[in-house]
């Protein structure tokens, strides 16, 4: 099969680690169907640093498309530029992360190329000669087996489903490619970053998430204290975000972030289907909730039926004891 292109996500020059899982997924396809895996970095001056990181992830080469028009990410310019590269080089498949980056421009690319897109994939297999794609549907309660017809094949990849490729390996060559951008009536205005010293939700080894049971924004202090002891990221259920207690990008669930850390602690979260869809692949799940009927307990390895305002401070005390032991 023709070669495979991975579109690298970066936040104005900062390489995003989700690309590592995307490279792994692309290599699964290469193993099944042949072809080599290349990476594409779009951006302005800062993109060279990203290309340098991408070059160490085991790809054959990195294509670098630079220009002032790519200084800020826009779906319109990205989809257009990727389409140019795909046509010029004849790629047979394009991969991107199923983050708000990939979910934004990849469908636009699908429309531009009239090419099939499988969203949020968790597996790739061969059935005889035919490629079969696995992807979660219905809030993760069904795994669909999907067939794609046409070319190029487009995929967005669920980060948690593929082990990340290693970073810092032998450097692949970086080649500049000419791409033009038509912003087509779209312009970047501003970005409001959620400031945090903690690990990112999708990269954290541990996550402490809070829901309706936390009752008020100021009570997140308790969650923060627990998270700090575990070097954990902080997540939230939709109820907590809707109530304005937590920023939108903390939301874990079907339509928010999909996470699978080593340890997920759900505090005062009942466990609606939509929330479970975002965290049920975590390695160890802890639930603290005073309602013993809460559905979160059905997926929890360690369920503690208790008032969180009593249990969490006790847990903090125990963890401190452990640390000082």
């Amino acid at each position, binding site marked *: 099969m023709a070669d495979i292109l991975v579109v690298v996500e970066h936040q104005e020059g900062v390489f995003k680690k989700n690309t590592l899982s995307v490279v792994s997924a692309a290599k699964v396809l290469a193993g099944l169907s042949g072809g080599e895996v290349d990476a594409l970095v779009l951006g302005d001056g800062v993109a060279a640093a990203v290309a340098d990181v991408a070059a160490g992830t085991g790809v054959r080469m990195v294509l670098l498309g630079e220009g002032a028009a790519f200084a800020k990410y*826009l*779906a319109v310019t990205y*989809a257009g530029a990727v389409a140019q590269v795909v046509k010029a080089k004849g790629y047979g498949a394009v991969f991107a992360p199923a983050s*708000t980056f990939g979910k*934004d*421009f990849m*469908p*636009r*690319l*699908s*429309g*531009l190329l*009239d090419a*099939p*897109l*499988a*969203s949020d994939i968790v597996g790739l297999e061969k059935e005889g000669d035919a490629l079969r794609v696995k992807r*979660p*549907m*219905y*809030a993760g309660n*069904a*795994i669909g*087996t999907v*067939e*794609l*017809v046409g070319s190029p094949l487009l995929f967005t990849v669920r980060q948690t489903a593929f082990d990340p490729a290693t970073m810092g390996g032998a450097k692949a060559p970086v080649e500049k490619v000419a791409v033009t951008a038509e912003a*087509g*009536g*779209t312009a*970047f205005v501003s*970005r*409001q*970053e*959620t400031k945090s010293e903690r690990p990112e939700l999708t990269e954290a080894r*541990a996550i402490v998430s809070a829901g309706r049971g936390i009752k008020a924004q100021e009570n997140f202090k308790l969650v923060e204290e627990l998270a700090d002891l575990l070097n954990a990221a902080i997540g939230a259920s*939709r109820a907590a*975000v809707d109530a304005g207690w937590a920023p*939108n*990008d903390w939301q874990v669930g*079907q*339509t928010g972030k999909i996470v699978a850390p080593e*340890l997920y602690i759900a505090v005062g979260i009942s466990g*609606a*289907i939509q929330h479970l869809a975002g965290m049920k692949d975590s*390695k160890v799940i*802890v639930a603290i909730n005073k309602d013993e009927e809460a559905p979160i*307990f*059905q*997926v*929890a*390895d*360690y369920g*503690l*039926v208790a008032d969180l305002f009593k249990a969490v401070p*006790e*847990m903090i005390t*125990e*963890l401190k004891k*452990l640390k000082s032991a």
Partner: protein
Amino acid sequence: MKILVAIKPVPNPDEKVKIMGDGSGIVLENIKMVVNPFCEIAIEEALRIREKLTGEVIIVTVGPKVSEQQVRTALAMGADRAVLVEAGADLDSLAVAKVLAKVVADEKAELVLMGKQSVDDDNNQVGQILAAVLGWPQAAFASKVEFAADNKKANVTREVDGGLETIEVGLPAVVTVDLRLNEPRYASLPGIMKAKKKEMKVVPLASLGVDTTPKVKVLSYAPPKQRAGGGRVADAAELVSKLKNEAKVL
């Protein structure tokens, strides 16, 4: 402003779906179908824009005739009229987007609002594909939409990883909506009565001349891996001890 809102009926998202024994589909008998929750937010936003700027809100759906129940719900919320493109339920995102593009052109819509994702297929594709097919700007995952004084442009705040991002889009444009954009209203009783008399144009798919041959086919469905779950601990001390010594995650 002439606003087109594309909607989709989905199985009640608060119920866990069941997969047919042979894996060929999802069991839909005795399942309540509702307007996809993100589509409700899109309808609400369209109604609010009409309240401010005047204009017309047109609902469109692509699917089987029974979808008219959910279309009536949208009309009962306050939309003006509807177009139902009668088609099988097996159209993929590309096909639906191409059909919608045709309706958008026929209706000369100035803004298309739709949910960012339907909670059945979880694709999150149609709005962005539609924008590409029309050659229009797109703003996906909107949590705020503000029009410029001349109504020729809008600033759209988008829910993205890491925070919020605001972009400016020239109209016409496609905007897909996220959870925090608004709180959708319920249909009132007078609204439900009025909706029965509102125009619903049923258009056969074949009459639009769009190639809807699927490029993405779902061949079968299987249940996900089940977790054992259900373990209990008595107190915080036992929890921390087990996390350390049994699960070894501390």
